[in-house]
């Protein structure tokens, strides 16, 4: 006879294993298979062809432009995110709550709409654009426009990571530092920055991933000029529409690699955060 073993709620083996199987199956089908197929398609013609596709002049330009956009976007949003998080968590001012809500606009608005708004504002007939046009400054359909919309789309990431953390940590450590005589810079470098370090890195990783991969907003303002204003995601689409599927997949595999690398970094950062907590406990144990 089987002895009856009472289980926790929802712990019946049938339910447990069917749910787990379903979750694993769906993850494979929706996430893993497409990812694997990118590489499979990219390498369909062998290594030689793959390298050839990637060393095409237009592709190289697209890679370069994408890296430049990310290299400009990330530092700007890093500084902006810290400033924003600092002002809404350390100061009381009218409209503070509204500002916190405003930060989320880029998340709420479709990137395509964001791109259109920029086009209307800064395009040659837009009311800022006409002034720029008179002074011979080309913003739309050129790299500055691409950088601008990318900054718009990615600006919440750093601030969103920092605000809850800084709210929870409070201002008293900073007050203590100032009372002890720390200057503004000493305060930031030695107290604030170490406290928000990991959240900041996390925000940067997310910002970078999105900046590299942004399609919708960039598509509207770039003008798709091959070899001039084409970023990597746009380039993939162009190649695909030109029936160069293999070349498209080669470029796409680069984006996929960046994504995988981002995931790896994110995992490392999370692991470091965990470890910096448990390290203290180990330290304590060894001292006892």
């Amino acid at each position: 006879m089987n002895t009856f073993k009472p289980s926790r709620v929802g712990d019946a083996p049938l339910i447990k294993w069917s749910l787990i199987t379903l979750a694993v199956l769906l993850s494979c089908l929706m996430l893993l298979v497409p990812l694997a197929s990118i590489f499979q398609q990219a390498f369909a013609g062998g290594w030689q062809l793959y390298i050839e596709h990637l060393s095409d002049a237009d592709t190289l330009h697209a890679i370069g432009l994408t890296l430049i956009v990310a290299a400009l976007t990330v530092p700007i949003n890093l500084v902006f995110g810290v400033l924003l998080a600092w002002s809404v968590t350390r100061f009381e001012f009218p409209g503070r709550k509204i500002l916190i809500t405003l930060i989320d606009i880029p998340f709420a608005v479709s990137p395509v709409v964001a791109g259109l708004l920029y086009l209307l504002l800064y395009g040659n007939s837009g009311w800022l654009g006409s002034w720029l046009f008179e002074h011979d400054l080309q913003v739309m359909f050129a790299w500055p426009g691409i950088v601008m919309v990318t900054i718009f789309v990615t600006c919440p990431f750093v601030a969103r990571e920092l605000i809850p953390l800084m709210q929870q940590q409070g201002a008293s450590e900073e007050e203590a530092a100032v009372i002890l005589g720390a200057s503004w810079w000493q305060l930031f470098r030695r107290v604030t920055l170490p406290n928000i370090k990991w959240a900041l890195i996390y925000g940067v990783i997310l910002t970078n991933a999105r900046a590299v991969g942004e399609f919708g907003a960039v598509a509207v303002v770039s003008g798709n000029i091959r070899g001039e204003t084409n970023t990597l995601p746009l380039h993939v689409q162009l190649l695909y529409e030109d029936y160069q599927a293999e070349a498209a997949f080669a470029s796409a595999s680069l984006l996929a690699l960046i994504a995988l690398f981002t995931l790896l970094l994110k995992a490392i950062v999370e692991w470091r955060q965990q470890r910096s907590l448990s390290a203290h406990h180990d330290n304590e144990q060894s001292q006892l």
Partner: protein
Amino acid sequence: MSIRLTNISKKFGQFQALSPLNLDIEEGEMIGLLGPSGSGKTTLLRIIAGLEGADSGQLHFGDRDVTQIHVRERRVGFVFQNYALFRHMTVAENVAFGLQVMPRKQRPSAAEIKQRVTHLLETVQLAHLAQRYPEQLSGGQKQRIALARALATQPEVLLLDEPFGALDAKVRKELRRWLRTLHDELKFTSVFVTHDQDEALELSDRVVVMSNGHIEQINTPAELYAQPNSRFVFDFLGNVNVFNANWQQPRWQNDAAFLVPPEQPELQQSGAIYVRSHELELADKPNSQACLPFDIVAITPIGAEVRLELAPRGWHSDELWEARFTHQRLKQLGLEKGSQVFATPQTGYFFGAEGDGAPIRLNWPFLPPGSLVFDI
């Protein structure tokens, strides 16, 4: 260093956190700011530190006007309620911080800093924890590190915001004594905030009682206890029994209960008599001077004393009365739960119905303790 506050006031939006107030703190004094939450005591402390700016008034450290001086330049030590230790620095780094951020000219050498930190950690008896991180310390240890950190720059003024609020009773008591010793040794001027009257009375040279943004009374603990100058101070300094009295010549009446005052014209009016719980005698009969009938509803031993909770019988009081006796005295009286007793105050404080002025202290000296039982 002495501290002088002149006409200091502060508003947060529409809320008057501090009404204009004056306070003189002498060099080397230990001052307790005592009051309920929202009384403005923490705001006052933060204004002295420079973390908050006053809307009006002047602040002097000694002869130096520091009203407009930035918190960084005021050179005060400050201990936060939640310790505010730098969480990513070790204990030693925390203590060294104030020395390391000094301008290059004044900054001691690295070796000297190290030596000072070691010495400070020895002073707070935590040298063995130098390499730990704050989250590995107990509350009491954190508080001592916070103190060591505040003292590292040798401030002449030490400010403490509810320093022992988050600690359990035993650690709190230890730390209080220890702080007092440290204060007497190092001779800094200290101001601390507390809502615990025992803490204020035990630690302070003088206590500043605050309510609603103004100072109710400033005095030494002994004087404050002997002569509270308002109902608020009386209420705040420990449990007190209140007899609401209607003047009916020749005595104060409250339904079946009465008290006969000494013959002074200013006492011949309605008001309230405040009686401390240990200044109450009990007997099985009333006497010619006092008739306060009670039922004993609870007898609770508290350490060396026994607390009796008394419910008025045949008259009205907003709250139960309390009396305290030694175990021995209670045994002599032979009282138990449910007994009917009559109380007589030995000392009472009379507040007239008009205003909130200082009370008149009353003694019933013709009633030596233990000889209460005589008939009307």
